[in-house]
C-alpha cells in the first residue's frame, strides 16, 4: 500500500525521457527503425500530466498485449501512473478507458494483432457519479 500520490508538477513534465531503447526519436509516423510495432500512445486528462509528449511512441513486439503496453508505460512513467490506471496488475479500473484505433479495449490480455492494426492508443480516465 503506497502512501500518498504525488502528482508530477509542471517541472516534472520536463524531465528527460528514460529508456532510450523504447523511444523513437523521429517524428510520429516515420519508420526509421523497424521494431515489431510502432505504437503511438495519447494520454489525456490527468494522465497527460505524466509526460509532455503527445503522442508517446512505444515500440513493442507484435505479439504484445495491451496489458504489456500498459506495463511498459507504467515502467516508463512511474508508479503513480500505474496507480491511477491499474487496480491490480493487468487489470485497469473500470473508469480507465483505452481505445485502440477508436475501438474500446476491454480485455488487456488481448494482443494488438488480434484486435486491430493498432497504431494509436488513446487512454483517459472517465469519472462520473450519479444519483436521483
Amino acid at each position, binding site marked *: *500500500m*503506497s*502512501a*500518498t*500520490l*504525488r*502528482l508530477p*508538477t*509542471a517541472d516534472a513534465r520536463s524531465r528527460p525521457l528514460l529508456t532510450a531503447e523504447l523511444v523513437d526519436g523521429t517524428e510520429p509516423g516515420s519508420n526509421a527503425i523497424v521494431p515489431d510495432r510502432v505504437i503511438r500512445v*495519447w494520454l*489525456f*486528462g*490527468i*494522465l*497527460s*500530466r505524466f509526460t509532455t509528449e*503527445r503522442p508517446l511512441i512505444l515500440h513493442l513486439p507484435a505479439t504484445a498485449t495491451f496489458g504489456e503496453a500498459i506495463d511498459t508505460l507504467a515502467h516508463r512513467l512511474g508508479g503513480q501512473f500505474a*496507480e*491511477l490506471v491499474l*487496480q*491490480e496488475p493487468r487489470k485497469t*479500473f*473500470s*473508469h480507465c*478507458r483505452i*481505445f485502440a*484505433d*477508436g*475501438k*474500446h479495449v476491454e480485455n488487456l490480455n488481448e494482443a494488438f494483432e488480434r484486435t486491430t492494426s493498432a497504431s494509436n492508443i*488513446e487512454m*483517459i*480516465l*472517465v*469519472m*462520473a*457519479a*450519479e*444519483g*436521483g
Partner: protein
Amino acid sequence: MNIIESDVTRATADDTWLKSSCSLCYGTCSILAHRVDGVVIKVEGNPDSAVGKGRLCGKGVGGLMTHYDPHRLRVPLHRTNPRKGFNEDPGWKQISWDEALDEIAAHLRRIRAEDPRKLVVQRTTTVTASRAPSQAFVAAFGTPNFSTAGGGLHCGNGAHVISGVMHASWSVVPDFEYCNYAIYFGASKGHAAGHASCSNMGKAADARFRGMKMVVVDPFCNFAAAKATEWVPLRVGTDAALALAMCNVMVNELKIYDTPYLQAKTNAPYLIGPDQLYIRDPKTQAPLVWDQESGTARPFTAVPSARMALRGSFTVNGVVGRPAFALLGEHLKKYTPERTEEITTVPAANIRRLAGEFAREARVGSTIVIDGVTLPYRPVAAIAFRGSQGHMNSVYNFLAVDLLNQLVGAADVVGSCLGFNPTCYGHPDTKLPYYVPKADADGLMVTGMWMGYHYPYPTNKPRMPSKQLGLQDVFTMGMTSPFLNSTDQEMLWEKFDVPYRPEMLINYGANLLMSIGNKDVVAESLLKYKFIVSFDLFLTETSVLADIVLPDCSYLQSVDSRSNFPFIFSLPAGLGEWCWPIRQAVVPPDGEQRRYADVLLELADRAGFRADLNAAYNATYDLQSPFRLEGDRKYSFDEICDADLRSHFGQERGLDWFKQHGLIKWPKKPEEVYWRPFVDVRVPIYWEFLKPLGEQIAAITEPRGLKIPRHYYQPLPDWIGCPSHACDAPGFDFYAFYYRDIIHTNSFTMENPWLDEAARLDPFSYTIAMNRASAEKRGLKHGALVWVETEKRRKVKGRLAVTEGIHPEGLGIAALAGHWGDGMPIAKGKGVFFNELLEVDWEHSSPVNLNLDLCVKVRVTAVETGQ
C-alpha cells in the same frame, strides 16, 4: 411584437410543434413544445415516445413557467464583495462573457498546472443532460472530484449501488405488466417522482386496474401507500428488520423458496468456510459447491446447478463448509416475527401473513410463454428506494428487501422485480447501444452498463485517497460522498494525508446549501473554496456564494443528444420499446444566457485542453469511427451531439434527423427485458466480499484512528439501528424523516408558481405531518406553528398537518422546501427546510457506502406566541 393578436389570429408564420425532452426532473419525459411567434405557449407529452407516452406530470406540463420565470439569470455576474456569508451582500456586478470566461480559464489553467484535483465539479441530478458534458469535462481536465450533490448523495450509494449489484441496473421497479403482488419499502415508483416517473405512473395505474395487489411499508401513508391495497406503517428506519423477518418466515417457517433459481442464479450453493469466505478450488481459485450426485466439492463451473447442495454441512479440504444458503437460513432465525414486532411495531401476525402472501403469490416453479418464448413467471416484487435505504444501514436495508425477490427467484423474470433495462442488444441497424451483464471469475454479475465512478461490483480495492476528496478510494462502495461538505472533512483529509485541498468549484445548478444537510456546515465547506463558478437558472442560495454566476439556458433552449440514455437510468423498464429521444432548442437564449455544454467547450479552448475534452467525449459517448472527435479540432456541442447520434444510429441519422423525428425507437425483445435466464450470471445472497473489504478498509483507516464497525461488513444482512434509534433524550420522541413530494423536484421547482400553488393547496407539501393521536397527546393542534428540534439543537419551524396517515412516532416533511434566498422569490419562505436537521459527518455516514442517515430524532414544541 404583439403576441396577443398573433396568438388569437394564428395568421402567423411561426406556429410549430417541436419534439424535445422535459427537464423538470431527471425522468426526462419526451415533450412537444408548441411555439407561436417565438413564444412557447404549451408543452405537452410526445405520444410517440415510450418515455411518458404523451403524458406529463404537473412539473413537466408546467415547465414553461420555469422557463419564463422573470427571475431567471440573464447576464453573467461577478462578485465585488470578497467576503462571503449568509449576511454578506455579494455586490453583484454585470460582466461580459469574455471577461467571465477569461477569468475562469485563468483559474483553470493555473489549477491544471498545479494539480488538477483541486478542481471540484458538481452538478444537479435534476438535469440529466448535464451529466455527460460534466463527466467529459472533468475527465479532460483531470480531476476525479466530480459530485452529483445532494440528489446523488441521498440515494445513490444505497439504492443505486445495490440495484447495480443485484439487478445490473440503476433502480428496480415491479414488472407492472405482469406483477400480481408488489411490496414497497419506502418507495413511490409509479406514484410520484423518480426514474421514468410518468411512464411508471401509467404502468402502475394499469397494474392497479388489472388487480395487482400492492403493500406499502412506509411510516407515511402518501403517494404509493395511498393507492396501496394495504399500508403497513412501521417505525422509521426499521425496514431491514421487517424484510429479514419476512425472509425468515419464508425460509424457516413456510419453507417456500425457489431452489433451482438459488442454485443457478445466486451464490447460495457456494460453500462457505469457518472464516466466512468461499472455500475455493486450490487450482482454479473458483468457489466450490457441493455436488450432491458425486458427493464431492467441486468448482461451481463444473457442476450442473441442479446438483448443487443448498443445505447441509460438508468437510472440504479439512475444513467444514456450508452452503451460503444454509448460513442465510440460520442467520435469519434471529428475526422472529415477535422480536421484529418490537423493532418495527408491525404486529407479528401481520409479518407472517405478509411473508406468506408474498411467498405464495410468487408461484415458484411456474412459467409463462411470451412472444413464443417460455420464461419463468414470478409475479411478485419487493421494491425499495430512497426512504428505506436513506440510513447508515443503507446497504443491508436495501439488500434485505431484495432478498425477498432473490429467495423466490423474482428477479428480472416475468412479473418480478426488474432492473431498469440492464440488457440491450441495440438498434437493429447498428446493434448499438449494446450491453449485457457478465460474470466475473467468481461467477457473480458485473453490470453491462453503469454511470458511476466505479462499478457497483466488483468493488475496487480500497486504497489511500489518492484521488477523490470524498474518500471513495477508501470506501469503495460509496459513489457520492458527504465529505465534500462535511463538518469533519479537514480532519479526514489530514488523517488520510490528502496532499491537496479543493480550491475551485464549478457548480452546475445544484443548490448544495439546501440539498446536502444543514446549511451552516455546507456553507462552511463552500467558503473554503478560493473560487466558485456557478451555472444556474436562478440566483440560488448556493450561487449567492459564488464568485462568478453564469446564466444558464433552460431545457427549452438547450440541446442534448441522449435525453434518456443510459437506459438503465430513466427509460421505462419492462416490455415495450427502446426509445432514444433528444432535446432540441425551442427558443433562443434570452439576454446573454448560454448553454452549459457550449460554455464548457469554450473553457477548454481558453484553458488549452480541447484535445483532452475531445478524447473525453469520445470515451464518454463511446463514439465509433468515423465519428470520433479528432485532435484539438473545435467542435460545437451540436456537432458533438450529431456525432453521438450518427455513431449510434448510422450516418443518415444525425442531429437534424433527430430534430425532425424527435426520437428513434425499436421494440424490446423478451430476452432483453427478462434477461436473467439468458445470461449466465449469479448474484450474491451472501456478500462474501464484504468482510474482506471491511478488513482492507480498516487496515487503512484504523491506524489513522478511524474505527470501522465490523458489524456493517458481515456477509449476511442485519438490521442495524440508526443514530436516531440510539437517542433516548427525554422529550425527543419523534423520528423526523423527509419524503419526495409528487409536485416538486428537489428544491428547484418551488420557484415555479403553478407548482408552488399546487403545493400550497396540498395538505402536506409545505407542512409537517404528525399523527393525530400523538398530536392530541401533546396538546398540539392542526395548523399550529411548531419547532422541530434535534438533540444537537438544530431546529426548523413549520405548520403541523395532523393526520391519521402517519406512524405515531413519525414526523413527515416534504424534502427541500424552505428557501430563504431572494433569488427565487416564489419559493422563498415556503415549506419546511428538513435538511437543516441533518448532521453531515462521519458519525452519521454509513461506514460501508457513505450514505448519510436521513432520519433524526426530534422534539416538537409549539412556537411561543410572539416568537
